[in-house]
């Protein structure tokens, strides 16, 4: 007899075996007389324990009314009791409205900061692109006049310079890049303009020849590109803030803070008003 056999016999006596276990054990009992004897001995043991008489309590366990007179299950009187339930409801509703108002004000205040941040981000790359456009030109051309002179000259000779192939290529590329940039998010404008400016100066370098005429046009090309870029930059500064849509954004931390505040206020109200 194994311990598992005893367990099976014990559960069998209580009817706690499933059908499969019971049928398997009954099949074994049919063939194994020792198992049957053990089952009979177990049955007698259980019958003896079950036959134990009920004892008489040595005394009464009734509870003394002087000690237990008031039933503890009765709900305790609240510390702050409001006379009417609807007053409680009214106060809770008022508190909820106040909370909602505070939350909305906080949301609007938070949203009001968004356009200012966008303006700052949009203005930065415009300035950067203007500076970057002006600086590479002298390094390539070497003998080029200072930027102030260049700008003045280019303004006066603008009509003469425009027909040059280099200037055409530069201005076309700058226009395309600006058109692309207008369709892109504000944050990418700086990099787009900077990249296009650098590539815009490349054709001018390629067209650089020893001849004086070509030299002059080569000088004019980047200068004209500078003017074009500055003009577009100014347009971009004016154009970007205007179409910016009002975006309601809430960070996760803000959401968590507001949920917590709401729960705490609600809990305090319930505690006080119950």
């Amino acid at each position, binding site marked *: 007899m194994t*311990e598992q056999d*005893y*367990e099976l*016999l*014990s*559960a069998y006596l*209580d009817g*706690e075996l499933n059908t499969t276990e019971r049928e398997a054990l009954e099949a074994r009992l049919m063939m194994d007389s020792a198992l049957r004897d053990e089952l009979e*001995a*177990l049955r*007698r*043991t*259980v*019958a*003896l*324990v*079950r036959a*134990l*008489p*009920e*004892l*008489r*309590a*040595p*005394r*009464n*366990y*009734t*509870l003394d*009314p002087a000690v*237990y*007179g*008031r*039933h*503890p*299950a*009765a709900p305790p009187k609240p510390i702050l009791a409001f006379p009417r339930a609807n007053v409680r409801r009214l106060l809770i509703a008022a508190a909820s409205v106040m909370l909602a108002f505070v939350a909305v004000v906080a949301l609007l205040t938070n949203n009001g900061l968004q356009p200012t941040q966008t303006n700052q981000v949009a203005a930065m790359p415009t300035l950067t692109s203007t500076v970057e456009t002006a600086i590479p030109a002298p390094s390539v051309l070497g003998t080029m006049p200072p930027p102030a002179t260049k700008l003045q000259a280019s303004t006066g000779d603008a009509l003469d310079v425009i027909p040059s192939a280099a200037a055409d290529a530069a201005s076309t590329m700058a226009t395309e890049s600006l058109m692309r940039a207008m369709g892109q998010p504000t944050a990418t404008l700086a990099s787009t303009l900077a990249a296009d400016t650098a590539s815009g100066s490349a054709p001018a370098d390629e067209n650089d020849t020893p001849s004086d005429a070509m030299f002059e046009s080569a000088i004019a090309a980047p200068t004209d590109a500078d003017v074009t870029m500055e003009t577009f930059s100014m347009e971009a500064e004016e154009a970007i803030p205007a179409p910016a849509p009002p975006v309601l954004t809430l960070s996760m931390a803000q959401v968590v803070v507001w949920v917590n505040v709401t729960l705490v206020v609600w809990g305090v109200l319930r505690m006080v008003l119950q």
Partner: protein
Amino acid sequence: MAEYNEVALIEQVQQGSLEAFNALVLRHQNAVYTLCYRLTGDAARADDAAQMAFINAYQRFDTFRGGSFKAWLMRIATNVVYDTARYDKRRPVTALEDLVPPDSDDGPPLPAPGASPEEVLQQTELAAAIQDCINTLSEDQRAVLVMCDVEGYPYQDIADSLNVQIGTVKSRLSRARSAMRRCLSALGELLPPEYRLKSDD
């Protein structure tokens, strides 16, 4: 004597009637005391546990969700016995009664009235012998044996009461019965002929 109506008494207790609760106490106190005695094997501890069980039942009457009131009461008594046992294990003390010589012992508690004096005598001796065997079991085995074979709880209820798996109940009960079988087989002539067991050896 007024007719005993348990449902009506329970409703009255739920409305705050201590008198109704005391009527329930008088009805079930023998059963509660018997359970406590079977679990502890000691009259004084059983007496304390039974009183505490009724106090707890009254204080937690709002947790009674219908069904068998006796079963609910028995579960409370079982918990009181084991909470007390755990407490005693942490803080072992020697009671004054334990210092008194054994010949002054009052003997085991009497069975409830209703049997002839001979039957009472026989029952008392036999019951004391069986209780001695129960007392030799480990605390875990004793709890399962008493709850199943004395109180007649199903395995699932025992598992729920003791916070163990049903497989644990099965194995503990099997070992407890096996130990009881060995212990009772030594009683010999004390057992009625139809209950006599052959020794394992």
